[in-house]
């Protein structure tokens, strides 16, 4: 099987005044055409940094190495000019906060049309027509009128739809959605996810969904990849992550989802403690200080990512003796 995106040994470090911060460490993964991969983790886990590194949108303090082959080319070695032809054309990206992600001084239509105009050989009028089509596709009502409105005249959910329209206007093969619903109301979240799903079906999009919300992922992802402190800790098909959890961190994350049933009297579980400093990571397992299953060995030995089943990898020294975690 060939992959649409194949990332090998991705490292991202930031130069700061305190020293190098290891934001992403030796992350390797791949995404096949048409699937939906969800990358899950707390803030600081390196999931957003991974996405921005793939788009080469990090600032100059970031040091990136590794390999990211996308449609047969390495994203990290191409020139900035070539990369510009990929962004917005072959890979679309949407961001967390639709309130600030759109430029306040241009109309929504102009902003969608612009991405068409610079990647395609077409007239302004054609680009605008395409913008209206896209707005229809993502379910923005009354698109002919709203195409000339400014972002502040749109609600949060409508702005995020406009962002999606912008990201897919050139029919890219990959859509990176970085926390697309975090800043939205709960009722709007479901609508926006529905838009992404329907767009995915209609144009055969591959989606990389970055989120901290496992509940959101449950109905949406084909495969889930859990990150912690810049490392991949578990990856498997969705159902295996939910029902055959092998990594204690994933388990803790699952346990902290508020129960949909809302059984009165049950306490909301949280993960105690904080993630380790990425400036000088301690030896041993990075999750060990917060882990209920930690042993003396976990403090000394850094675990490797190991196969624990079909297409199922987990980073835990006690994978075999703990078995499936419930």
């Amino acid at each position: 099987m060939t992959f649409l995106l194949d990332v090998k040994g991705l490292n991202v470090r930031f130069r700061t005044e305190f020293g190098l911060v290891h934001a992403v460490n030796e992350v390797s993964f791949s995404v096949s055409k048409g699937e939906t991969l969800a990358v899950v983790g707390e803030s600081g886990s390196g999931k957003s940094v991974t996405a921005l590194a793939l788009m080469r949108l990090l600032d100059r303090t970031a040091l990136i190495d590794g390999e990211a082959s996308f449609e047969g080319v390495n994203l990290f070695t191409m020139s900035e000019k070539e990369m510009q032809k990929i962004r917005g054309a072959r890979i679309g990206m949407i961001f967390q906060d639709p309130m600030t992600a759109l430029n306040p001084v241009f109309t929504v239509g102009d902003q969608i049309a612009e991405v068409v105009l610079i990647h395609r050989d077409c007239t302004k009028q054609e680009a605008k027509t395409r913008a209206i089509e896209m707005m229809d596709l993502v379910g923005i009502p009354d698109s002919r009128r709203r195409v000339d409105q400014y972002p502040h005249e749109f609600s949060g959910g409508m702005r995020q739809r406009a962002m999606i329209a912008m990201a897919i206007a050139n029919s890219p093969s990959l859509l990176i959605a970085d926390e697309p619903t975090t800043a939205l109301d709960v009722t709007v979240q479901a609508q926006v996810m529905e838009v992404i799903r329907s767009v995915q079906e209609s144009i055969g999009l591959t989606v990389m969904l970055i989120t901290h919300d496992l509940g959101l992922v449950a109905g949406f992802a084909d495969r889930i990849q859990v990150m912690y402190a810049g490392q991949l800790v578990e990856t498997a098909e969705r159902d295996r992550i939910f029902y055959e959890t092998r990594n204690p961190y994933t388990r803790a994350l699952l346990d902290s989802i508020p129960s949909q049933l809302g059984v009165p009297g049950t306490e909301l579980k949280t993960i105690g403690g904080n993630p380790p400093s990425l400036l000088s990571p301690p030896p041993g397992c990075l999750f060990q200080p917060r882990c209920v299953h930690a042993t003396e060995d976990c403090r000394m030995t850094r675990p490797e990512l190991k196969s624990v089943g079909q297409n199922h990898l987990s980073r835990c020294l006690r994978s075999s003796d703990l078995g499936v975690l419930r």
Partner: protein
Amino acid sequence: MLTYVIRRVLSTIPLLIGAMYLVHVGVSATSDPLASLRLCLPRCQEGYDRVVEIYELDRSIWVRPFAWFGDAIRGDFGKSEALGEPVGNVLLERGLNTAMMAIPAFLISALLAVLLSVYSARRQYSKTDYVLTGFSFLGLALPTFFVGLVLQVFWGVWFPQWTGMKPFYTGSMRTGSVLELLQSITLPVLTLVIVSVAAESRFGRANMLEIISSDYVRTARAKGLSESRVIWKHALRNAMIPLVTLWALDFAALLSGSVITETIFSWPGLGPAFVIALTKPDLDLVMGITILAAVIAIVFNLIADLLYGWLDPRIRFD
């Protein structure tokens, strides 16, 4: 929008009247046009009576401004005793001279401020950025008169042969050719540019830096736009919004006469006239220049607000 403009103008009128009233009372209270005449009484009784009549000195200083308002509404701003000309003529002639310096100074400094702030923000923490930031810091500490004096010393005393620029009496022209005009206004304009560019570019850079790290600029990059399009289209339009207000204030100040620069370089603009009017004091001339400056300030504030609304669609006038 027209109603907005009208309402704005109307709302400033009471303020303007109050200000003019206070200036009139203030100048009247601190000056005595009869000081020299009183010494020669009774010999010059006639002149004494004339001055009393012109300035209505027999009436209370609290009611004197009303006569001025009455004349001003009819377009009569009185006569300047110091310059021997109607105030209206003085304002027109000197206003044009001032504009001759103010307009190039404003255009050059605005352009420089944009270029410098874009450059500094794009190359943040580069050596050039440090040097430029250092210069703007120094520029902020320079009083205008000091800049003018340094330029005079440089061109007038140390290197007088360079380029034939006039360092001292720029107002006295022999031929009136374009070249002579340029030689005359270059140093004063340079003074004004140095002083305003420092503040504008520092402000512009801070703005630009904030905008460059904003989410919508990241979106623009994620769309695959070239860096120059990201900066000059998406970032600059936003960075201009707060700059417009600063520019309007600066330009208004320049147009109402840069007192210090024009005085140092003896340029016959509104600035030196103002100093003359104040030191005499020449009440009608003070009032004339004040009202001109106030009107310019009000108009440019309004222009700034309108431009603001045009640049930023979130602002609506109603």
